[in-house]
């Protein structure tokens, strides 16, 4: 509706976006209709509009005072988006600052030869955990070493039966 308006004057309805005017022949439009219940005097509409404008002056002035970017209007009279614009810019600044802080921390950490996965495993093991010796060594553990720590279940059972 709003993107297809025609010229407007007080007392003259202006919406022209819809092409479905009433089916009356030679429809002159709302303003000139003799069937209208509304006043036809342009002065009446001008006066009513003026009263509404006067009534709205105070709140509009308050809006203007509360909007820091109101004066930051472009040449065609279209201002910027006010508080939403400020918030959007603030969010960009915060994200940039957070990214910079993470980058600085990352660069200042001492380099490690341990892969992240291995470091995680080591950190999660208790000091006397036998698995720690297996996974933290430079070389893969030999089968004998593994069997010492984890004897096969089948090998232990016969001993228990003997007891």
């Amino acid at each position, binding site marked *: 509706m709003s993107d297809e308006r025609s010229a407007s004057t007080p007392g003259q309805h202006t*919406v022209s976006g819809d092409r479905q005017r009433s089916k009356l022949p030679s429809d002159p439009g709302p303003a000139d209709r003799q069937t209208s219940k509304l006043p036809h005097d342009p002065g009446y509409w001008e006066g009513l509009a003026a009263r509404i404008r006067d009534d709205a002056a105070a709140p509009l002035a308050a809006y203007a005072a509360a909007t820091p970017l109101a004066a930051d209007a472009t040449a065609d009279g279209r201002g910027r988006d006010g508080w939403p614009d400020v918030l959007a810019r603030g969010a960009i600044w915060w994200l940039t600052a957070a990214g910079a802080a993470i980058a600085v921390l990352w660069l200042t950490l001492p380099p490690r030869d341990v892969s992240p996965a291995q470091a995680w495993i080591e950190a999660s093991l208790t000091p006397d955990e036998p698995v720690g010796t297996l996974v933290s060594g430079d070389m893969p553990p030999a089968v004998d070493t593994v069997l010492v720590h984890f004897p096969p279940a089948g090998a232990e059972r016969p001993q228990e039966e003997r007891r």
Partner: protein
Amino acid sequence: MSDARDRTDEELARDAQRGDAAAFDALVRRYLRPAMALAWQYTRGVEDAEDVVQEAFHRAVRALANYDRTRPFSAWFYAIVRNVARTAISREGRRAALAPLTVLEGEPPAPVAPDPALHSDAERAIEALAPMQQACVRLCDLEGFTSAEAGRMLGISDNSVRTHLRRAREHLRVALGPQRRMMG
């Protein structure tokens, strides 16, 4: 500076939100007459409709900060007009012409006392219509708004307005038929 006539309602509302009096004035000029026509459907009097419209603009300008610019301004503003009008007629204890506008289609209209203002048979026939049919006939056929415009004003769809119009015209045709034949 760009002409306000080239700008959408939402653009004007955005500028009015920042205190642009010219943008608000453009909105007033754009919506004054439709708002009066809508208010009249409730009040049935120009002076009362004027009060409703003034109050609606008064509320709208104070609620502008809460207006969501991604939604159509017209729907937002007409809802304010309807609410103010309903409040006004209920406060004054009048029989609302459209009280409420949600009166079901097809429901028989309440008996209406003879009104000296009804100076024509056509007017009487319109008064006998169901409330929403009356509103659609008055807005579209008497005030000259399109069905889409009337739909936005009344808060119903374009198709609903057309349906109400079609039924209303059928009723009017029947009601005014004998007179037409006599006149013919």
